[in-house]
């Protein structure tokens, strides 16, 4: 019990532990050779800072910088400082590949935080080939799952999110689903999972309409969805797409409940009052999760940035700590340890790591993690947590 509490320690305790190397986790009997320390642990991050929907990249960056500051304030990892090398991928795969190559050329990075499905799909093969350890707290596409041995996820992926969102419809006894989805990889992942899940449930899919994620006109899609006589509409898109869909669906007189997988300030701005009643499934960062670390993080984040942290901030903050923990474990084994391969070995040897969501997070063999998904409801442009989705295993 004492050990469990230690392992769930608050940020400062964890950072101190990283600095001093006192954590008893996975300590080898003896190091094969002395560790070859780099002057600094540089962790790369590819974020969509220049993207149209850069709100999430902004909070990701905040989470990363906060974690780096905390770890360094506590003495770094075993006395060595951490640095974040953040590059902007603008939400564009080609730009993401260039940004990754810059990180490689300038810093020879061994670990990188990825974001955005479409960019992660373009950059992951390069990281895999170059043996760079990857952690993704933003992408949801199933196209990334199980395909890359160096890629791990600390966000729920499409197979979990779509099923969680559909629990809303199942609880209400709905049978006929209409779908509006983005013709992007994450949209298609959500579509595939939801079709299989809904059919297995005995439901009927009465319409599937698609549009580009950046579409500025979805009137035809909404007109077709309206005449499908569905019990509910599922939006398998990420910000800002659902905003226009919600707006036009209500303006076109669709009164059915609408569910989805994300609600952001951008969606709220476009949808306006039409977002009221929208329900969605999402990872849920709860600062009162009964563990000191989430509360400490939430308070510090709120104090520093003036906003409460949400999923993306928490995931990328957590991402830095996960990689820091793996570096520390790899260092204990000695040798030239700050390598992607050694970080991979470390997580494979012990896939359990402390989570800012409370308790430990356990990575699955396919690289995904198990986190509870919350169901939220929108009222007056704000999403409120209702309950956790109960997913059948």
């Amino acid at each position, binding site marked *: 019990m004492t050990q469990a509490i230690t392992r769930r320690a608050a940020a400062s305790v964890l950072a101190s532990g990283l600095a001093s190397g006192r954590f008893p986790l996975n300590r080898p009997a003896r190091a094969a050779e002395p560790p070859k320390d780099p002057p600094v642990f540089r962790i790369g991050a590819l974020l969509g800072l220049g993207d149209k929907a850069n709100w999430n990249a902004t909070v990701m960056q905040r989470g990363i910088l906060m974690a780096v500051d905390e770890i360094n304030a506590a003495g770094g990892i075993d006395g060595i400082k951490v640095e974040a090398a953040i590059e902007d991928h603008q939400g564009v795969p080609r730009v993401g590949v260039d940004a990754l190559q810059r990180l490689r050329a300038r810093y020879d990075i061994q670990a990188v935080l990825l974001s955005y499905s479409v960019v992660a799909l373009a950059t992951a093969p390069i990281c895999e080939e170059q043996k760079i350890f990857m952690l993704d707290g933003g992408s949801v596409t199933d196209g990334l799952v199980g395909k890359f041995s160096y890629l791990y996820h600390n966000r729920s992926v499409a197979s979990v999110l779509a099923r969680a969102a559909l629990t809303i419809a199942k609880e209400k006894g709905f049978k006929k689903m209409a779908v509006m989805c983005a013709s992007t990889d994450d949209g298609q992942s959500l579509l595939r999972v939801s079709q299989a899940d809904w059919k297995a449930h005995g439901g009927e899919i009465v319409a599937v309409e698609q549009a580009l994620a950046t579409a*500025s006109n979805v*009137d*035809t*899609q909404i*007109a077709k969805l309206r005449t499908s006589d569905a019990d509910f509409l599922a939006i398998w898109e990420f910000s800002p797409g659902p905003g226009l869909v919600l707006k036009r669906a209500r303006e076109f007189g669709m009164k059915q409940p609408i569910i989805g997988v994300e609600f952001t300030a951008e969606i709220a701005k476009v949808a*306006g009052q039409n977002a009221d009643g929208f329900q969605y499934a999402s990872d849920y960062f709860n600062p009162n999760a009964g563990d000191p670390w989430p509360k400490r993080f939430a308070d510090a984040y709120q104090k520093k940035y003036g906003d409460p942290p949400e999923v993306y901030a928490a995931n990328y903050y957590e991402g830095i700590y996960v990689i820091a923990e793996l570096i520390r474990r790899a260092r204990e084994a000695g040798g030239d340890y700050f390598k992607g391969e050694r970080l991979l070995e470390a997580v494979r040897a012990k896939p359990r790591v402390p989570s800012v969501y409370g308790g430990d997070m356990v990575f699955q063999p396919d690289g995904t993690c198990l986190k509870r998904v919350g169901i939220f409801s929108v009222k007056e442009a704000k999403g409120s947590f209702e309950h956790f989705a109960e997913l059948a295993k």
Partner: protein
Amino acid sequence: MDLFAQLLANGLGNGAHYALLGLGFGLIFTTTRIVHFAYGPVFAVSAFAVWLAVAVGGLPLAAGVVLAPLTAAAAGALVYWLAYRPFERRGMSSHSVLILSLGLSIVLESLLTLIFGPNIHTVPGFAPPIFILGPVFLTGLQIGEVIAVLGVAGALLLFLRQTRYGHAILALSDDRDMARIVGIDTDRISLIVFALGSAIAAVAAVFTLLNEGATPSMGFNPVFVAFVVAVVGGLGSIPGSILGGFLVGLVESLGLWKIPTEWQNSIAFVLLFVVLLARPQGLFAGARR
């Protein structure tokens, strides 16, 4: 049948939007022979001007809307005077001007991103009225756009036919060299055309702002739509631009009645391809002005 009626209404609404875009773009191209890709950022500038006036400055929406064509006219004229004109004066080829236009479009969009950030800017509290006509739902914006295109086209026709500058524009679009020989100040007329074409685009930009918000990249698609509309309708023809706009809008909407909506973005270009094959001068090229 309900779906058909709704798609028809949508097609008319979208068509009006496209017609506005095609009118401005076509007017500029026909008169100056410049493929004005920076039309997109100018479109965005006018939307941001309204957003600044209403959401930041606290002006009433009606007052803010008036700023759109004025800002766009100034931006369009500046783009011509500072960017295109010096190249023209040096006798650069149309290909060079085309590349300049593309580069300018990227620079201006980046500038907008630096100033406003890449995210969406909306007019808070604006909700268009909804009209229900049997099975058809229409928003005030859709109806407003149809009225706007008819008003703009009427005013433009009057301007071209009844004013000295209008006659000069028509002369320039017929034969630039001959216009110069007979004493028309082609620089000044080109400047006016850029201001006028940009102001027309601003009308469409206001509707986009009110419908979905403004972003620095909001002008990217409209440039291509404007190009398709202008070519399909017949370059230089005002009735052609209007009919071309409605045709593209209706084909895009009704064309998806029975086929999957994944094809939405291809339909306009398929139409362009067919028109270029069958009638390269445009469907309504005979109906000049």
